[in-house]
């Protein structure tokens, strides 16, 4: 254990009820170094970050800033001590501009009495440029800024305070490759300026590209703490997953799942030259039992296509056929009625946080052909919930516990269960493995294959080239609102990535 870090946690312990989420953990953030914090969901990473940044008060243990003991009563205390946290799902003032969001802290730490939008935009633009972000207009309202760029705004906001310690909680979970590299360039720049950076992430390859030091958490304990050069990826995975799981290769079923061909069956969904908000001239077809991947950079227009299909946005031209019949859905309720379910990206748009697990799953059965006043058939629905739970191995103490008590991966499964509750013929999954840990991710992949094997058509949107390649029988690559390539199952990660950047004439493209 090194000493004399910018921020030291000593013997940090945190209990929630009877559960010890953090068990006597020592953690040091060193000046000018990037430390990776790895572990499955529920391993205690977030709790550790929360305890070191004032969001939680540890039950036991001490915190030292530059060797001096401190006590944070709030995140604000930590901020004043130079500790900044970039959260996975940033909270923004949606009606305000990007610049106002970046300089939000000025409302807290008043430097002047006035607030000038013009000079603020200028300063924000300069600040963003210094981070290598030059395509984001600071005068834009935040509500028009999509996933990845929101993350960059959040990071820009954290850096305004010139923190000496920066925690990044899965900053690249929703970022495409390009944005990730841009983000990492920013992190390297900060490291070179002497900032101590802690990166919580699930993407090991990228972590190793960037990090100097690796810390692995498991079940609330720190199980590994070493220089990146001294801890090969293979060993890190073993520490993360525990011995037994690591012995089973994750992608063992790839060949078998891909063998299924569905060419002879009529497509569930066909789009013919459709255009709409954020996309142009898109044509595709998906057959029963087929897993069609949709790759591309974040913001390329993939989600927009899906939203238009389910009726949450409008097509401006083109034709959509569902099971061979022309359709236009006026709302997702229509789409569900015709057998198309959508699992949105980001759990915030999907989970009923105030309700039970059971409620969350059953909600999927309340759209399709159900006259509202019909009495809930408790037995039938309960059986269906149990089936779905068993099928998805949702880990909840009971269907009656609150959905907000589940971990991210289990909440994701809950959404799968809900989408399946209406017995869809087509399941549209928007970044279903976003921010969930390695073990749950492979389970999710397995589940997607099983559903396809049952004959459900899967439209799988992901920013991770690896998982697209692993799962999809065909991959459509979207770039700036158009489908620029259709890749076969034999395509490589490189093909996906290069076409995502709009390089069309690459080997591997079928047309």
């Amino acid at each position, binding site marked *: 254990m090194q000493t004399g870090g910018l921020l030291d946690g000593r013997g940090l312990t945190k209990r929630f009820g009877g559960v010890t989420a953090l068990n006597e953990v020592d953690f040091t953030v060193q000046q000018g170094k990037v430390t990776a914090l790895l572990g499955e969901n529920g391993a205690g990473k977030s709790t550790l970050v929360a305890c070191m940044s004032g969001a939680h008060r540890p039950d036991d243990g001490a915190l030292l800033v530059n060797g001096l003991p401190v006590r944070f009563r709030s995140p604000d205390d930590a901020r004043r001590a130079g500790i900044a946290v970039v959260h996975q799902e940033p909270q923004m003032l949606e009606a305000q501009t990007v610049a106002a969001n970046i300089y939000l802290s000025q409302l807290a730490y008043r430097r002047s009495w006035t607030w000038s939008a013009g000079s603020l935009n200028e300063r924000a633009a300069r600040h963003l440029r210094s981070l290598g972000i030059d395509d984001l207009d600071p005068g834009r309202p935040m509500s028009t800024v999509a996933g990845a760029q929101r993350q960059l705004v959040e990071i820009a906001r954290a850096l305004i305070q010139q923190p000496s310690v920066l925690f990044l909680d899965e900053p690249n979970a929703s970022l495409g490759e390009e944005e990730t590299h841009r983000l990492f360039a920013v992190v390297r720049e900060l490291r070179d300026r002497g900032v101590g950076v802690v990166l919580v992430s699930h993407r090991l390859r990228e972590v190793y590209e960037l990090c100097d030091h690796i810390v692995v958490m498991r079940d609330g304990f720190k199980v590994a703490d070493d220089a990146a050069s001294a801890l090969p990826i293979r060993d890190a995975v073993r520490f993360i997953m525990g011995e037994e799981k690591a012995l089973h290769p994750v992608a063992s079923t790839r060949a078998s799942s891909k063998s299924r061909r569905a060419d002879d069956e009529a497509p569930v969904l066909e789009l013919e030259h459709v255009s709409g908000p954020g996309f142009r001239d898109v044509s595709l077809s998906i057959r029963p039992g087929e897993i069609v991947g949709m790759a591309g950079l974040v913001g390329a227009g993939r989600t927009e296509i899906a939203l238009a299909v389910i009726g949450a946005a409008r097509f401006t031209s083109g034709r959509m056929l569902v099971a061979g019949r022309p359709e236009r859905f006026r709302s997702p*309720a229509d789409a569900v009625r015709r057998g198309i379910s959508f699992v949105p990206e980001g759990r915030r748009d999907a989970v009923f946080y*105030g309700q039970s697990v059971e409620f969350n799953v059953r909600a999927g059965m309340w759209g399709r052909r*159900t006259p*509202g006043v019909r009495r809930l058939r*408790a037995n039938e629905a309960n059986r269906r919930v149990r089936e779905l739970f068993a099928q998805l191995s949702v880990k909840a*103490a009971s*269907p009656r516990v609150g959905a907000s*008590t589940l971990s991210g991966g289990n909440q994701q499964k809950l959404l799968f269960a809900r989408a399946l509750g209406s017995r869809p013929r087509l399941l549209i999954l928007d970044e279903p493995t976003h921010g969930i840990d390695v073990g749950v991710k492979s389970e999710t992949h397995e589940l997607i294959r099983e559903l396809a094997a049952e004959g459900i058509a899967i439209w799988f949107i992901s920013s991770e080239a690896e998982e697209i390649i692993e799962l999809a029988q065909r991959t459509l690559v979207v770039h700036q609102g158009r489908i620029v390539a259709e890749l076969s199952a034999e395509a490589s990660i490189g093909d996906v990535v290069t076409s995502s950047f709009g390089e069309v004439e690459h080997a591997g493209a079928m047309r």
Partner: protein
Amino acid sequence: MEPPVATTPPLDEQPVPTPPPAGAEVMSPPLRRVRGLLQGWGSELVVAAVIVVLSVLIGLAQPVFFSTENLLNIIQSVAVVGIAAIGATFIVISANLDLSVGSTISLCGLVCAIAMQHGLSFVPAIGVALLAGAGVGLVNGLIVTIGRVNSFIVTLGMMSAIEGLALLITGGHPEPMPDSTAWLGQSNVGPVPISVIALLGITAGAQLFLSYTIAGKRITAIGDNYRAAYLSGIPVRTTTVLSFIIGGATAAFAGVLQASSLANAQPNAGAGMVLTIVAGVIIGGTSLMGGRGSVIGTLLGATLLGVMSNAFVLLALNPEIQVISVGAVVIAAALFDQWRLRRGG
């Protein structure tokens, strides 16, 4: 559910600081049922406990409080407000608000009286009044959903518009209710007033509707997370409109009941009731953030307000203090709601 494989314990990153579910596993089934019941009805039990404690205190000072007559009197006094509050509960659970409920009460009482002056008998006239109330709810709901206007401002405007309408059609004068209508608001079955039976019956029906129909669950879903409900295929607009229609219809029935018990329908019968109605809903544990609440809670909330006002009469306290105390109780209920949200219960 089935315990997970041993290698991945179901530890959550941020578990709620309530006793762990593991504790529930070792309890005997009946005990677990009782506990489950208590957990689901926590805020209702708190309100019930407050009512009991308050009643005991009042009863100690004025033993007449506990006479059957007085207790029935209390419930009867909250019947009008309580019935309207039941419908309002649905609107609040769907994360909206209906400030026009008081004006709707006035208008629909008048509609009933005027319909009878045009030759309808009482029961069909009630039907016409309910249609009028449902119509007000329909308009509110359509403006909120299609026009995408905040329900607070829509129903604030509607409150004034309907109040004006009621004055316009009557010229400001009360409309008499025929004697044939008196049974609803003024008579008893044994010792129990019909209005009390109506209140309890509507409470039971509405609670069953909320808990055991898909429409009821949809209302909870859109209040908890509107976007999630929309994307998972729940007809969010229809559901929102439905909650306003229910609110309008119960307000209409409350208006008829009020007119029947006063033997005439007054154009300002419901004026000032809106605070009491919303107060009853909030005190009953329904969250203003939507997604959580119960009809039984609302009944208890309204009853608590009835007990308070009864106490002021029995103890001969200053009525102005009652107005202040109602405000204080509403704010206390809202604080309690927030405290519970933070606690994660």
